[in-house]
């Protein structure tokens, strides 16, 4: 029982990170019907941005405070928001009117570009993330240990999720985003600046990926330029599992991915750690192609 609880606690913390990345996939897909395969690499850039930011500001080590950690988090998010906007402007906007396959290939190209630029700029050897919050062990219930880092991960994820939901449902921009997702042409006829809304979507999605990158640096402090590939794929599966295009779906999918990964490694074998994502993907596509919370709508092209 203790062991199971420990696995669940760790799985939820890890799953929150998948959830944050999956949100970016889902938002972009919802609006553009584009699977942004470069998203996992934006997450990697987020982790590195935080790494260098923490170094320059001296936020790691002895001088670490909650304020400086927050500064690092927000800085990395801002940087990646900008990167997301740039990617949209330079790579996706020019091919938006072309076929979906073109957009998909472009996405893969951007992904490879970011990975290899990462190797060029940061070097191929792994870096070790500075401790921007000193680690502490917390006993949840007797025998089940988590760290303050894992608690932070879950809390920050919840905060960002609540903020995002409020933004989408309450703000004018959020309403416009939903309108664009529903029908881009009609939204445009109603006077919604579609291009600007798409840019904002990319900015928010990338900022969330950056947040995930920083949180990973906190709990699993080894970062390297190819670190985004696997989590990127898994978060994509999480988004499909939850129902791509659905925001609560992405969160549920992310958490399920994290927990099932832990259970598989803990009770079956670590060699199946990555296989589980693909088994889930196949099962979802076979049994419920729209995902858990997705609705089956006829494609209108």
């Amino acid at each position, binding site marked *: 029982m203790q062991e199971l609880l420990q696995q669940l606690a760790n799985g939820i913390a890890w799953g929150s990170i998948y959830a944050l990345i999956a949100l970016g996939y889902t938002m972009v897909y919802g609006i553009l019907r584009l699977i942004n395969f470069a998203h996992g690499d934006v997450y990697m850039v987020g982790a590195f941005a935080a790494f260098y930011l923490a170094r320059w500001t001296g936020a790691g080590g002895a001088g670490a405070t909650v304020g400086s950690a927050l500064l690092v988090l927000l800085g990395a998010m801002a940087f990646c928001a900008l990167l997301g906007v740039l990617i949209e402007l330079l790579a996706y906007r020019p091919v938006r009117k072309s076929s979906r396959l073109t957009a998909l290939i472009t996405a893969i190209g951007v992904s490879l570009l970011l990975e290899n630029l990462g190797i060029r700029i940061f070097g191929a050897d792994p870096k070790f993330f500075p401790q921007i919050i000193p680690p502490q062990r917390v006993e949840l219930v007797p025998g089940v240990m*988590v760290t303050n880092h894992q608690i932070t991960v879950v809390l920050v994820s919840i905060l960002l999720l609540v903020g995002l939901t409020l933004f989408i449902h309450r703000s004018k921009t959020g309403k416009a985003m939903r309108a664009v997702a529903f029908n881009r042409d009609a939204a445009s006829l109603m006077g919604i600046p579609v291009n600007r809304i798409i840019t904002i979507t990319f900015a928010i999605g990338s900022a969330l990926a950056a947040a995930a990158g920083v949180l990973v640096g906190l709990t*699993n402090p080894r970062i390297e330029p190819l*670190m985004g590939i696997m989590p990127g794929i898994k978060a994509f599966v999480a988004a499909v599992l939850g129902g791509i295009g659905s925001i609560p779906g992405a969160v549920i999918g992310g958490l399920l991915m994290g927990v099932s990964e832990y259970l598989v490694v*803990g009770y079956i074998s670590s060699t199946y750690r990555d296989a589980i994502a693909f088994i889930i993907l196949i099962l979802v596509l076979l049994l419920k192609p729209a995902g858990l919370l997705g609705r089956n709508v006829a494609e209108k092209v």
Partner: protein
Amino acid sequence: MIRFRKHVIAVLCLALLIALPLGCAKKENEIVIGEYGSLTGPTATFGISTKNGIELFLDNMNAAGGIGGTKVRVIVEDDQSRPEEAATAVSKLIDQDGVVAVLGEVASSRSMAAAPICQSAGVPMITPSSTNPKVTEFGDYISRVCFIDPFQGQMIAKFAKERLSFTRGAVFRDIKNDYSVGLANYFTEAFHALGGTVISDESYSEGDQDFKAQLTVIKSKKPQFLMVPGYYTDVGLISRQAREIGLDVPMLGGDGWVSDELLEIAQGSLNGSYMVNHYWVDDPNPAIQKFVNDYRARYGGATPDGLAALAYDAAGVLVAALDRLRQEDAEAFRALQGPRNDAQKAARAKLKEFINATKDFPGVTGKITLDASRNAVKPAVFVGIKEGKYEFVAMVEP
């Protein structure tokens, strides 16, 4: 016909391209050897230490006049810590650079990717620190200057059972890594033979970020120690995460832990743990102290780790064999400086014989004698970690 001519021209151009660097690479009075290693990637410090050790030895030797006036130059290739790149790197060294011998790799999996290439090309390869027994089984051109994993595994088991009086241990192996799997097996075998039990045997894959799922399973079995035969980047994270979920037992490991970065990554979580090393840096032996001081002077105060010391010795063994070749067969020695032809091939075969006949070579990691399987037989050193510092524990003879 036109098409045929086009092909011929293309082939000629290609041949010219390949031949050009070969033609320019060699100088008079110079022997070119190759080294491949992980200058980047997750085990970057291994490759950098090895390169430093080799260059230190060769530069000292060249400055002192070389091998009877002949200088030795080394060409270094980076394999990015990946076995498939290691194969590409040695192929390039042999085919393009025309090296007469190869030094490398640290990681057994990468040595095993390169060894068959060296064997079939007839180019002697000395690995400074690959400890998996299979490495030298590829043939008589492959040898090593370090001890092998069965010995290392036995020593760790003996240390756990006799010195620390532990009977219940857990093993956490890197399933993708030949070195780690081999060492885990030899350790388990020896620990059982001594009357201990391995109560939990879990695995991870090199480069994983999260180990808590497996560590949780290990913790539930309540072992007295955790043996992790992995490499330092993973070990540092594993020890941190073990403490985070409350698995507070000493960890034991092999020479894959050897890196100055280990303590930095582990952030104090490795206190009370033990590892095997190839030599001890504060050994009062004057030859070792000269090596340590030379190394520090040359590389900005960095302390040479066991891998740098082994690399230094691997270069030493190769140069000693070259020197013997010069003394006993000047013709063959000259052929090594010339182009790739049958005479050179015969010379390389002779060089291999001299390497394999190495006996009582006075290295900084102990006296090196190669046995019939071309493995070095020599003692291991146990190092403990206390309050964030390494300390000498014991020296164990084979």
